[in-house]
């Protein structure tokens, strides 16, 4: 074990950070580069992408051929440890409600496997109440965050194109990869039915960038979900922020440290964090001049709610009673099928980057629709690496479509069946919407008064329900998908849902974009943080994950978490210089 994981002597750090995903990683990076001494607590393992490798493995390297387990719900090669259920760490629900809670437990958190979809929020996304009267405006606008998006584009790298779209701002982009064959079909069909298709915006290096010599350009294996151990070409907090931060010598990482409480003094100021070490099951405390929570929107809310003291009887910085409230996820609904024109297609390597090469930003006008917020569409398909599930259900396919010109009976066996698998391979196509849900006070997580986890820490109880707005949005998604599928001559094989199951609207939490639980605002009565992500009632406490979001747009939230975390971190440095912290 390298020495850098822990300190030799007890000391007071400039900052104690809880959580090492996008928000915590960026804070550790910015603060350590500025010379501040940082202690980074991570509830999971000391993952190192250079040692813990699943990239470029073959399907047979997994005895279950890449199928999922509870340890890796996205499949056996996925880089994320844990997910929906963690042994010994339960969460509960108010009856009749649902929230599926994803928890990564590893250095770098879920950024080790995320989709790398790196979208800036647009000017309208910060001012939704002014536009449609629902929810709240942010205390900041696009102009406040734009400089940080610019810096992050250059520091981390993102490909895309400047399209001059009003609410999908231009950025500092690397060149995108060319569309794959099925993406050309999608683009043609979608454009014909009035849905724009533009190059996707993913934080994957198609070229080397100037900010670092440590990272190389993408070599197109399509395996960003396994984290780029070899080239560090995609963004993960571990590869891009934390290990570089550690190399400054200013960061001590404590892995397997499950935070219990934020400690405060008689004046109500944060003094540090208490945690349990999962390896030795002993209790520890670490002290710092500021405490930065980046444990995920729900875990950070849980920590604050569990941090009760005389000065903070309702949980830390929670006289407003908003901590835990306004919890929301992206909406999601998908559809898939086959493109008969791709049957019997020529083989070539079309892996490309890990994810779509094109996508559809929101094009609609919500004033003319029966739901208030938009969504974007993500696409997939083509000749991927075979994995568990390959060939499944051939009996539903090989009787319907002639194989190399011959009409066959469904099912079967033998050499003729082997011909069928070859014929249908690579013809799959699919799409999914990711939309903005309303952030509502009535959707929340709270401390379950009756249940603790195996560490004795009171757990969260969720109470989240979708409204008609989200259901109508999902209906619109499905209608759009059908139009696109029909326009390209695809056969829909799944996802043609109706009102009986809310048009296939995924359960809240399922899209893994939790946000809103510790929201920022100018009014301390209606928000927990100010516009710097600084607690209204505890000036040396900051939250830099998805918690501070007032609303989360129809854009994946990571790029904005990074931008806000960088902005808060620079503010902390500034305030420390002025001796305000």
């Amino acid at each position: 074990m390298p020495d850098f994981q822990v300190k030799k002597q007890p000391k007071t750090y400039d900052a104690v950070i809880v959580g090492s995903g996008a928000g915590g990683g960026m804070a550790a990076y910015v603060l350590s580069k500025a010379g501040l001494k940082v202690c980074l607590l991570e509830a999971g393992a000391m993952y190192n992408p250079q040692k813990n490798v699943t990239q470029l493995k073959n399907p047979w390297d997994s005895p279950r051929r890449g199928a999922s387990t509870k340890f890796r719900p996205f499949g056996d090669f996925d880089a994320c440890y844990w997910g929906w259920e963690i042994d010994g760490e339960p969460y509960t629900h108010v009856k009749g409600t649902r929230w599926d809670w994803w928890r990564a437990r590893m250095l770098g958190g879920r950024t080790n496997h995320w989709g790398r979809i790196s979208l800036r929020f647009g000017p309208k996304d910060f001012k939704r109440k002014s536009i449609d009267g629902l929810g709240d405006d942010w205390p900041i606008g696009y102009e406040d965050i734009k400089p940080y998006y610019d810096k992050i584009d250059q520091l981390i790298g993102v490909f895309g194109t400047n399209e001059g779209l009003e609410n999908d701002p231009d950025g500092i982009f690397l060149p995108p990869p060319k569309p794959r064959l099925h993406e050309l079909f999608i683009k043609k069909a979608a454009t014909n039915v009035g849905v724009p298709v533009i190059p996707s915006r993913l934080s994957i290096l198609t070229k080397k960038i100037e900010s670092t010599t440590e990272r190389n350009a993408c070599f197109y294996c399509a395996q960003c979900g396994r984290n780029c151990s070899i080239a560090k070409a995609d963004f993960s907090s571990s590869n891009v922020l934390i290990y570089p931060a550690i190399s400054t010598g200013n960061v001590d990482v404590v892995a397997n440290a499950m935070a219990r409480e934020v400690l405060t003094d008689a004046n109500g100021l944060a003094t540090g964090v208490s945690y349990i070490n999962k390896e030795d099951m002993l209790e520890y405390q670490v002290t710092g001049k500021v405490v930065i929570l980046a444990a995920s929107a729900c875990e950070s809310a849980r920590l604050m709610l569990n941090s009760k003291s005389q000065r903070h009887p309702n949980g830390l910085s929670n006289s407003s009673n908003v901590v835990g409230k306004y919890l929301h996820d992206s909406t999601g609904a998908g559809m898939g099928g086959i493109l008969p024109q791709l049957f019997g297609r020529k083989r070539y390597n079309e892996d490309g980057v890990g994810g779509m090469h094109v996508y559809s930003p929101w094009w609609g006008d919500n004033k003319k629709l029966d739901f208030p917020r938009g969504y974007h569409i993500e696409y997939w398909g083509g000749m991927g690496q075979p994995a568990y599930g390959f060939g499944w259900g051939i009996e539903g396919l090989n009787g319907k479509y002639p194989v190399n010109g011959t009409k066959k009976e469904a099912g079967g066996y033998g050499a003729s069946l082997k011909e069928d698998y070859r014929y249908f391979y690579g013809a799959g196509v699919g799409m999914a919407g990711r939309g903005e849900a309303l952030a509502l006070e009535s959707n929340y997580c709270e401390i379950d008064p009756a249940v603790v986890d195996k560490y004795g820490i009171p757990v969260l109880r969720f109470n989240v329900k979708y409204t008609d707005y989200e259901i109508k949005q999902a209906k619109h998604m499905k209608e759009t998908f059908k139009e696109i599928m029909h326009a390209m001559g695809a056969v829909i094989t799944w996802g043609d849902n109706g009102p009986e199951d809310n048009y296939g609207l995924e359960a809240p939490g399922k899209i893994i974009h939790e946000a809103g639980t510790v929201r920022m605002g100018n009014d301390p009565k209606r928000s927990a943080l100010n516009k710097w992500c600084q607690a209204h009632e505890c000036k040396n406490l900051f939250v830099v994950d998805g918690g501070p979001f007032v609303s989360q747009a129809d854009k994946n939230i990571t790029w904005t978490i990074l931008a806000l975390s960088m902005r808060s971190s620079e503010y902390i440095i500034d305030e420390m210089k002025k001796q305000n912290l």
Partner: protein
Amino acid sequence: MDRRKSLKALAVGTISTGVLLDACKLSDKKTEEKKTDSTAGNELNLDRQPEELEKHKEVTSKTFFTGHEMATITILADIIIPKDEISGSASDAKVPEFIEFIVKDMPQHQTPMRGGLRWLDMQCLKRYEKAFKDCDEKQRMEMVDEIAWPDKAKPGMKQGVNFFNLMRNLTATGFYTSPTGVKDIDYKGNTPNQWNGVPEDVLKQYSMAYTEKELKECIKFD
């Protein structure tokens, strides 16, 4: 530097009770075990967390199918995926071994597989007074033809059809994720390369072309 000692050094407010002392002893043992690197320290050639290795040990320490069942599975798998001019058979690709593993890893497959195999044997016993594996090839194929074609199978054969569908699916998944199967399906990826777009001849085949905007903006390699 010893990781645990240093953690203690970091601690400011350690609670000391008998329970925690015991926990400490236990963790000494655990720390010893944890020293192995998670990729190198296992036979899987794949990054694994300690919990995953434990689960793997547990799954592979048991045997699910009997010798009789495995022999039947092997015969069926090779009927579904026989050797042809392009690739080997299911058993060449160790599909029966994969099926043995996967039903232990995914217990939901256990009853349909065990029950389906017994159903098959009982059918053969009635018809030929022998278990499926002991039938001659003609008898086996007669039986398989009763359950291999979902749309034309007789109503009384539905349970057999479902079993054969599962058997077909497990066999195909096991085969096409093996070295033999990946080569057969001719998957060209999982290797460093430069994506330069859809090959010219393929674009032509589908009457597709990149726009000038795409050609100008996208990354290209000479």
